[in-house]
């Protein structure tokens, strides 16, 4: 009997190997569907296991922690794995059509290589969420980087290649910076396991250096302002399913690692100034990304800049969980709100952003271009996609009752509780700007077209995949109880229990 934790990694990897070995047309669909199904089943098994019997841990290679590598699953990792599973399989459903022979937009090479690359990426995302070893996280991050960059290059267009190159260089630099931090940590603690390092005494300057290197590297990979320069081209020039994967899922992985290190390895909350700095950069991202999104004339670039902005909200967790120099928690009593709010934002953003990129894919397919000015008459031609884009937009803006609203409400509550009212101001301005670019985008859809133009027909399944994601991004706002209970299992944010 293999543990569900291991299945979450094994199932996509088996699928990836099969898809690489048998890329023929006959096998592609059964392998893809089988791999998605098996991975979802593993995710379900893991969720019910953690839900019923608490956090899990297993040793690999039969060697317990300092010598071997451990896998660990607590509420937060399961939350991320479920997010990846739900969003990933809906994107997969879209990709099944996008990379099928029915669609004339892709080349045989793309169709052959998409599935092995995406499945290996999925497996290593799960591997990151389950890993308890800082060096193992480095290797998994590299797998993710290479797979993500290769996915961008699949489309073969010159601008996609240039964007992929910039992304590869930035991510490579981020990995090396992270690895230097790992080296410093190992030199200080003589161990690589997160739990073991966390239990040791703090070690002054070497640890500060390690944190600086790792945090910078991970922030670069997460595209935190001002290190976001690589994101808009990379995310907008890729094919629609790839854009959705990158924006919804890949950037969250490095953020997750940063969060783990903040709470688990380094005594993050003690670094008040660092927390404020990260929060300030996040705020700058919110404003700058939204402002840039307002100025875009192409749908995919607009959505990509919106990702830069939405990533900013994630970084508000750092000031909200920091301790004041006097020692008391800034948001004492509101920590639960801060942590669950940010996790929830990651989830609702993943759903909404995947929906928008898939919707943009439909637009690109039907209109042959994603210029906003070309989208005239879309509300009548593509009512389902327009509806999906609008609903996803509602969740991004944070209007009630949506997942985005719930998340922002929680963050605002925590910020007010912490007395850091300035973040509320930023969130308000960011929300207004978001509303601005969403309306600007939708306006074109409702303008009636000048002259009837010849368009390619859109088929139902791909529109439904986008719609399902958009609806989910709203629906998650209605049920907060279970996710909250899940998130506290195993005490992933070790300051929850403090008064």
């Amino acid at each position, binding site marked *: 009997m293999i543990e569900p934790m*291991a299945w979450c990694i094994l199932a996509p990897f088996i699928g990836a190997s099969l898809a690489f070995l048998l890329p023929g047309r006959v096998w592609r669909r059964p392998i893809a569907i089988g791999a998605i199904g098996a991975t979802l089943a593993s995710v379900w098994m893991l969720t019910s296991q953690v839900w019923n019997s608490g956090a899990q841990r297993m040793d690999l*290679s039969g060697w317990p922690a300092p010598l*071997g590598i451990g896998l660990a699953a607590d509420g937060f990792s399961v939350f991320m794995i479920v997010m990846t599973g739900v969003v990933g399989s809906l994107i997969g459903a879209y990709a099944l059509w996008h990379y099928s022979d029915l669609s004339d937009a892709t080349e045989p090479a793309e169709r052959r290589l998409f599935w092995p690359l995406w499945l290996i990426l999925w497996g290593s995302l799960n591997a990151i969420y389950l890993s308890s070893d800082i060096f193992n996280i480095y290797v998994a991050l590299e797998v993710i980087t290479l797979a993500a960059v290769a996915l961008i290059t699949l489309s073969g267009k010159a601008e996609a290649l240039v964007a992929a190159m910039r992304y590869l260089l930035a991510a490579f630099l981020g990995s090396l910076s992270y690895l230097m931090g790992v080296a410093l940590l190992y030199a200080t603690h003589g161990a690589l396991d997160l739990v073991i390092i966390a239990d040791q005494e703090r070690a002054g300057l070497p640890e500060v250096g390690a944190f600086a290197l790792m945090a910078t590297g991970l922030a670069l990979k997460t595209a935190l302002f001002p290190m976001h320069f690589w994101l808009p081209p990379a995310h907008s020039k890729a094919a629609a399913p790839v854009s959705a994967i990158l924006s919804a899922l890949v950037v969250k992985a490095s953020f997750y690692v940063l969060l783990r290190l903040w709470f688990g390895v380094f005594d993050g909350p003690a670094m008040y100034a660092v927390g404020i700095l990260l929060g300030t950069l996040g705020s700058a991202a919110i404003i700058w990304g939204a402002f840039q999104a307002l100025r875009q004339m192409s749908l995919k670039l607009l959505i990509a800049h919106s990702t830069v902005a939405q990533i900013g909200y994630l970084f508000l967790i750092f000031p909200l969980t920091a301790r004041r120099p006097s020692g008391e928690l800034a948001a004492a009593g509101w920590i639960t709100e801060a942590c669950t709010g940010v996790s929830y934002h990651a989830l609702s953003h993943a759903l909404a952003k995947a929906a928008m990129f898939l919707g943009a894919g439909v637009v690109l397919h039907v209109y042959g271009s994603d210029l906003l000015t070309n989208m005239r008459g879309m509300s009548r031609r593509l009512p389902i996609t327009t509806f999906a884009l609008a609903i996803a937009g509602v969740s991004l803006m944070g209007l009630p009752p949506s997942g985005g609203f719930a998340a922002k409400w929680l963050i605002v509550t925590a910020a007010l509780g912490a007395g850091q009212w300035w973040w509320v101001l930023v969130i308000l301005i960011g929300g207004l700007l978001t509303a601005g670019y969403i309306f600007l985008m939708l306006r074109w859809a409702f303008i009636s077209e000048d002259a009837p133009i010849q368009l390619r027909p859109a088929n139902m399944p791909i529109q439904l995949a986008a719609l399902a994601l958009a609806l989910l991004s709203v629906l998650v706002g209605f049920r907060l109880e279970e996710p909250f209970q899940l998130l506290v299992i195993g005490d992933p944010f070790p300051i929850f229990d403090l008064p």
Partner: protein
Amino acid sequence: MTRHDATLRRRRRRALLRVRIVVAGAGALALALLLVAAVLELPEGPLGLAEEAAAQLAHTGVDHAVTAVLLNYRSYDTWLEVGVLLLAVMAIFALRGGAHLENVRPAPRRDPLLTWLTRLLIPMLTLTAGYLLWLGKFAPGGAFQAGVVLGAAGAMLRLSGTPSLDRIGDVAIRILLAVGFLAFLVAAVATRLAGLDMLELPPGRAGDIILMVETLATISIATTCAVLVMAMPGAESPPAIAAKDVRKEART
């Protein structure tokens, strides 16, 4: 007028570059100072896992500590690492427009000297690779070093114009490339089904299993290295992509 503009632009570019150099220099210097200070504050050691690793060495099936770490204590890392190599090849296939090696750069003309040298070197390189692989059990050496040497042999075959990897067919190439990753995958599932921890090797048979996995990994690494050298996108654009660009233009 245009020349004046060009000079101006050039001057501005240079000024920008100078700013960039100064900023980068200051940043790098600051980081260097931080790192040096951190290094000087490092504990004296010894700290790491040398003792633990040595104490359990007898149960790992190999006598060389680094091989024990790579293929027993932390074999999961090595698995992902083999995955990274597989990904690099997939990525290069993606750039070439497909997982095939036909149309790799035309082989150079046959050169008698080079052919002679190849005939001499290939057996030697293969032997060296085998020796390195076997050596890894108790001395410095192992799958990665052996794989690179074997890959060099493959690249040499290519250089001398002898048909090799580019003639054995797509399916065979893919199997050779994936076999290392698959070996770990099978080991992971099989050990767990046998009631052990995932990737745990029973001390009695660990040596044999490691040698088997390493051999398969060597094959994959060698193929990967040879493909990396051979399949680099060259001057001629891969036909698939070129044709696609033309079609794209025709459509718009």
